[in-house]
């Protein structure tokens, strides 16, 4: 029997005041005018709770860009969902934060780009660091769980220990050390972001030491980046197995990046209920289970653990969404990953120097072809 999804990821907008070079949003973002209305989201949250979903992750873009966020949280809370806000923090005052907590927010996950202000602003394409620090202090006054998320990559991994100490000072309950994942904007900017093996080995050691030191105080969640792993990640816990993602326009997807896969039509929550989409839509059934699997997945004993890896990565790197994830060392296309790693580990990469500017235009001009900033959708 098909289990219920456990979590709903609601990308309530693609608008964002930040322009992070590894943003997980698709390259083609939803325009402000095409976003679902308040009452549509509220209906979706009620359907989600009725379907047995426990956790709601409100994300974007920057969810605070929606003026109705408190209403959405209140509706989700009222439906019984455990509500998490994934945010850059830009767009919340101390008063608005209190309003969101009163509405029933359970958990806030605040992203930091770096411990060093110049570097953080250089990655985000705007000045955000000062406000984030202030927000972290406000958050701790409220009875909600607090996670700090830090995306790591070649440009900041060398001072990971410093970044961990910096986060420690903010007093969160959890710290997520997330390697950039190469989809969307991060794939476009991969050459500047992918770490070297030496950096990665050092980082694993730094994280292990921090875990030991912070045990019982701050929980650290960190994952080895899949390009360096022997086996692929169990992307989203398997296609259509645990999670549903709704994009700003109401399109239901099995993951953040699935929209890039050609030949799949994704249904909209305005046309069908969440339950119908979960159970019956061709998109959610496309890679569910093991029927679709090619060799070597089909005969692999790990197939029920990693589900053949990530379909989007298979498409983006190997050109075939039905192929084994190239990140798997057993995949026929693994040479694609090996070539990327050989390149980054053979060349002596000069570390880029952060550009200091609060103007996106100047930043883009100054960084040249190092990377492309994510623009704000219209």
């Amino acid at each position, binding site marked *: 029997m098909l289990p219920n999804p*456990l979590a709903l990821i609601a990308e309530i907008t693609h608008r964002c005041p930040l322009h992070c070079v590894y943003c997980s949003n698709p390259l083609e973002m939803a325009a402000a005018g095409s976003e679902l209305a308040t009452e549509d989201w509220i209906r979706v949250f009620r359907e989600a709770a009725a379907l047995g979903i426990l956790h709601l992750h409100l994300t974007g873009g920057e969810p605070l860009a929606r003026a109705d966020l408190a209403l959405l949280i209140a509706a989700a809370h009222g439906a019984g969902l455990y509500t998490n806000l994934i945010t850059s923090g830009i767009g919340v005052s101390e008063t608005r934060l209190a309003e969101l907590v009163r509405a029933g927010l*359970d958990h806030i996950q605040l992203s930091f780009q770096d411990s060093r202000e110049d570097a953080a602003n250089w990655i985000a394409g705007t000045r955000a660091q000062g406000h984030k620090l202030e927000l972290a202090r406000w958050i701790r006054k409220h009875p909600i769980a607090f996670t700090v998320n830090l995306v790591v990559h070649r440009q900041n991994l060398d001072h990971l220990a410093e970044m961990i100490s910096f986060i420690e000072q903010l007093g969160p*309950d*959890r710290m997520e050390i997330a390697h950039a994942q190469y989809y969307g904007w991060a794939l476009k900017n991969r050459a500047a972001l992918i770490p070297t093996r030496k950096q990665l080995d050092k980082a694993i050691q730094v994280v292990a030491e921090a875990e030991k030191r912070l045990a*019982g105080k701050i929980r650290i969640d960190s994952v080895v980046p899949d390009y360096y792993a022997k086996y692929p990640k169990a992307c989203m816990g398997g296609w259509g197995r645990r999670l549903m993602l709704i994009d700003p326009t109401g399109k239901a997807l099995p993951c953040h990046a699935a929209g890039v896969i050609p030949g799949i039509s994704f249904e909209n929550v305005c046309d069908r209920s969440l339950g119908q989409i979960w159970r019956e839509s061709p998109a959610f059934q496309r890679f569910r289970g093991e029927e679709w699997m090619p060799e070597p997945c089909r005969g692999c004993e790990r197939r029920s653990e990693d589900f053949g890896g990530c379909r989007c990565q298979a498409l983006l790197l190997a050109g075939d969404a039905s192929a084994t994830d190239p990140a798997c060392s057993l995949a026929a296309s693994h040479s694609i990953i090996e070539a990327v790693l050989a390149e980054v580990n053979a060349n002596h990469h000069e570390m880029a120097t952060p550009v200091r500017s609060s103007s996106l235009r100047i930043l883009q001009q100054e960084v040249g072809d190092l990377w492309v900033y994510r623009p704000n959708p219209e």
Partner: protein
Amino acid sequence: MALPADHSQPQLAKGCRWGEEGADDTILFPEGVIKVQGTGKHILERCDGQNTFADIVDELQKHYSNSDPAKIRDDVGKFLEALQQKRIVDY
């Protein structure tokens, strides 16, 4: 970190809460959920920030009077410590 001290008052950590009606044997926390039953549920229901660790142990020792009291104390401490490491319980 260590086992809870006698005078500590264990409670669910910030942002961790019991499930709604019909799911009141679950504890929801960031990114996850645990199902608790039997003695585990009994212990966590007493982790209200009021009862001390000593109170909770004492009650269980009386309840399971045929078991070794030192072992009960040790088991309850380890149970709470494991949840504290996951940032589900604070003391």
